[in-house]
């Protein structure tokens, strides 16, 4: 797509700033992202040097309840309301 300036971060999905409750880490990500503004031409794609790997076997955590049942839909689709929002 060639966005004008992009910082690639190798983190688990859902964590674009990297580490929750780690303001210093998040500030390093922001500093690297804002440094791209100094590039005179683009598009620019830079890899952030610090990576985070998920630990295999970690259970998924869901802080939200599943979407409500919709009895008017076919059984296989009664919880389909929220599923499409993952893409």
């Amino acid at each position, binding site marked *: 797509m060639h966005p004008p300036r992009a910082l690639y971060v190798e983190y688990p*999905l*859902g964590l674009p700033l990297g580490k929750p409750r780690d303001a210093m880490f998040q500030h390093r990500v922001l500093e690297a992202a804002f440094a791209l503004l100094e590039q005179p031409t683009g598009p620019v794609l830079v890899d952030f040097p610090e990576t985070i790997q998920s*630990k295999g076997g970690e259970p998924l955590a*869901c802080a939200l309840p599943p979407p409500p049942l919709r009895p008017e839909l076919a059984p296989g689709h009664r919880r389909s309301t*929220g599923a499409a929002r*993952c893409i």
Partner: protein
Amino acid sequence: MHDNDQAMRDFAATLAVPEFEDTAFTTPPALREARVAIVTSAALSSSGWISQWQAEKWDFADFHFETLPHDVRDLELGHVSPNFDRAGFAADLNVVYPVDRLQELADQGVIGSVAASHYSFAGNQPEGLSALRLDTGPACAKKMLEDGVDVVLLTPV
């Protein structure tokens, strides 16, 4: 890498990506003078509203964006499928939506100011991103221009 995480990456790699002939590349003012806004695809909204929305009027063709006043922190993440671990968001809003980090940078004089509002989209978009390119995207950009925003920080989720 978590199996589910890798599966989502593999799936995303199969999605068609629009190609643009030209990159919209502009040079903003110096960062210490720039007004900065966040645009996220985390489907954030005010607490309590998302549950009502899902129950009463969720529509796959609803491509609207939410306006998030800068001082609002009581937000919900609208993605409800378990395709990524949202525990990080539950622990710290800033890992998705770094609104406190921006305020700190403004207080330190690193950036000029923080926008009055930020904006949140959901990931469900039509093939070709027509709504985003022709409707919601320009509408969101217009609101930011009216607020004097110079720099937009995009945080994909």
